């Protein structure tokens, strides 16, 4: 186990280096000149040179890359080119709201989708299954924008059940006051495919021989489902969830925009528009790191819930 973790961590080094190289090349070749954007309308050769010197763009490509490497090693990406704020401050303040929304959305999604998927799988081809399938298909087919506009108009503005949009400084207040409506809108879109997806895992497990054995032992259907089938069906669920975790960090752009949530989604779009290299670098490296760490974690959790898995 220990040897396995060490080996995997060592494998991350070349992977991360590859990511850095790719980001650097993409930005320097295709990214356009940020000094032109920053200089704005008062463009003189002198101010341009000044900005370039300030940003370190006058240095050679290899020197710039070395600085990038140093930044990754110290996890200090300097200051934003457009706002002059430290990158760590920007990400630090933006990541909380994003995680609060996407994280709570994931938890509620799992709590609804897994039991519902298990139920419809058990009664497959029955009336319940058909009704849920139809509802899922309809819910999936409608655009998120329709939900958001309808939700903000009816649920918030007309009925006054939720605030239309907004955000406060207190995480608790946000969670029970500002998060529910955007979360509901997000769930309308995500639940449909998730229920259909998880349903297939349960149906596959229900067809296995060990289910017949469990019934032949005299176990009740409840125990067969909740003990024998659930544990096996959760194995692929864990895989898909772990794969999606790194993306929680980027936030939900559409929801954040419509509900005025100061999250990462907005910050990413802004940074790309402004060619704000330090922020893009930081986010890309953090996402890459998170993906690698969560993948490793997923494999370790795998080993925990599925004894057949061998870590090699």
């Amino acid at each position, binding site marked *: 186990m220990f040897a396995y973790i*060490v080996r995997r961590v060592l494998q991350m080094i070349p992977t991360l280096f590859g990511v850095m190289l790719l980001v650097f090349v993409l930005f320097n070749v295709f990214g356009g000149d940020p000094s032109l954007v920053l200089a704005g309308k008062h463009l003189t050769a002198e101010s341009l040179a000044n900005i370039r010197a300030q940003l370190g763009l006058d240095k050679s490509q290899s020197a710039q890359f070395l600085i990038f490497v140093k930044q990754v090693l110290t996890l200090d990406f300097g200051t934003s080119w457009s706002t002059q704020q430290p990158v760590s401050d920007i990400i630090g303040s933006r990541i909380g709201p994003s995680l609060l929304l996407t994280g709570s959305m994931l938890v509620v999604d799992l709590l609804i989708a897994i039991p519902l998927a298990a139920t419809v799988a058990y009664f497959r081809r029955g009336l319940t299954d058909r009704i849920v399938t139809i509802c899922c298909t309809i819910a999936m087919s409608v655009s998120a924008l329709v939900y958001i506009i309808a939700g903000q108009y009816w649920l918030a503005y007309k009925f006054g059940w939720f605030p239309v949009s907004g955000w406060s400084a207190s995480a608790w207040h946000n969670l029970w006051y500002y998060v529910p409506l955007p979360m509901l809108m997000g769930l309308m879109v995500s639940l449909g495919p998730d229920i259909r997806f998880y349903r297939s895992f349960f149906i596959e497990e229900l067809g296995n021989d060990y289910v017949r*054995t469990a019934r032949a*032992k005299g176990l009740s259907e409840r125990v067969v489902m909740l003990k024998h089938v659930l544990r096996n069906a959760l194995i692929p669920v864990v895989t898909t969830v772990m794969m999606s975790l790194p993306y929680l960090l980027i936030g939900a752009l559409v929801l954040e925009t419509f509900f005025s949530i100061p999250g990462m989604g907005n910050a990413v779009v802004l940074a790309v528009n402004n060619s704000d290299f330090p922020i893009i670098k930081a986010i890309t490296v953090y996402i890459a790191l998170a993906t690698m760490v969560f993948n490793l974690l997923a494999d370790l959790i795998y080993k925990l819930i599925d004894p057949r898995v061998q870590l090699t």
Partner: protein
Amino acid sequence: MNQQVQQDTLLSIRNLNVRFKQEDAEPFHALKSINLDIPKNATVALVGESGSGKSVTSMAIMQLLPQMQTLIDPASQILFEGRNLLDVHGAELRRLRGKDIAMIFQEPMSSLNPVFTVGDQIVETLMLHAKLSRSAAAKRALELLIEVGLPDPEKKIKAYPHELSGGQQQRVMIAIAIACEPKLLIADEPTTALDVTIQKQILELIAKLQAKRGMSVLFITHDLGLVGEFADKVVVMRHGEIREAGDVQQIFENPQNAYTKALLACRPQLEQRPLRLPVIDDFMKPGGFVSAGERQRGYQADDEIVLDVQGLAKSFDIRQGLFGKKQFHAVKDVSFKLARGKTLGIVGESGSGKTTVGLTLVRLHQATGGKALFEGKDLLAMSPKEFHAYKRRIQIIFQNPYASLNPRFTVEQILAEPMMLHGIGNNAAERQKMAQELLDRVGLPARSLVKYPHEFSGGQRQRIAIARCLTMKPEVLICDESVSALDVSVQAQVLNLLQDLQDEFKLSYLFISHDLAVVKHISDQVLVMNKGEVVEQGDSDAIYRQPKESYTRRLLDSIPQGWTGGTPALA
């Protein structure tokens, strides 16, 4: 047990009619007015081919048939100690299942839940029915594992199913089944997926437990030859009907029904080698089966050697520790010669390396040592480009006819693809004509061309797989357990087909199997393998008559003896 059958009846099935709903057709009549009695303290064997309804019968007793699709005639009765099981539902039914009636299945690996330890799975049953505490159940589980002869039970009780061998898994299934002292044990093909030596051990175990505990056993199998040694009564089923039922002695010594006679005859025997194996149809037609005489086998001095394998070796790397590697030797120094128009049989248990030999010869595995000379050229040393020309000439047929045909291809596409790849036939029409001829040759109608693999039975699919190999007009055919997944009756048909093709096209076979009787029937030479090494090699008659090595003798002793004339070989 054979003589002293008690008259008391434990379970009797009366007039059981089961139908399965179908999408757009009349319900399929799976069981047609079945009547069957299981006496107390006795073993009843229920024998029939796939689709005969034997498993449906056992599932009906346990009420394990899918409720939505199953129609059971209201007049049907399954009386267990006087109570009609078909009227028992809910909690009452669950009290019977696993306690009074227990069941073991064909695939022990998939029948156990992969994510719980074997101990937990036994404890679960004990806590449910015997109302034991967890610690008392754990103690009892250990006793049960000792009783079913699981090696190293203190350690294995904490093992997960995948950490055990097939035979050990089936022992665990038996331990679960007997945990609550059932009155009836239903064993549904419990040894079909196991090696012949393990099969013998499991049969001995079931017979021993039956006698010791005085329970009744309903033993379901497709292989009539298997049950002679331990069954008291035999019931033969076909197409959802009972063809014949009687005491084991009567069934084996004086079978009345033509179908029973056919089942007894179609299994290859060690003592004789008929020119053609009898098949069911021979017995069902008027006039019955007429033997066509015996076939002599063995290599001759003037045989032309097609394939000369010298010192073949294959090892796999296994990771160990931080950066370490360990080598696992799957095949060590295997040498043999295959003659034109002859068959070399390779026998051995699971893990003996016999399949690896086949796979390295067609380069699906990269050999780590040795040579395979084909017309004097080493197949293993060729570049992939050079080897391409030889691919056509050495073909392989796999064990599982269900998994080895692409389900999205029609039979025509399956047959035409290799022809296109190797430039056989000038155009589509010509290839279709060749495909048609080949189908005819393997005994399938021409209209099969437009069908998909799932529309065929296992035996028919294996014929398609053989036809696919024949499209390339190979000279060497490697048959890797090609008939092992088939019913004995279908197996006889496929073996006859292979023999006919060998006679006609002078094909050379490398016939890999764990079934010694089948290998004896079809092989001129036999190579016995164990743990990657050759144990013994020679003319097949000589090896079977006088095995030199103890390992070979042990394999031969494990072959089911059939009816031994009333002296129980087991129990």
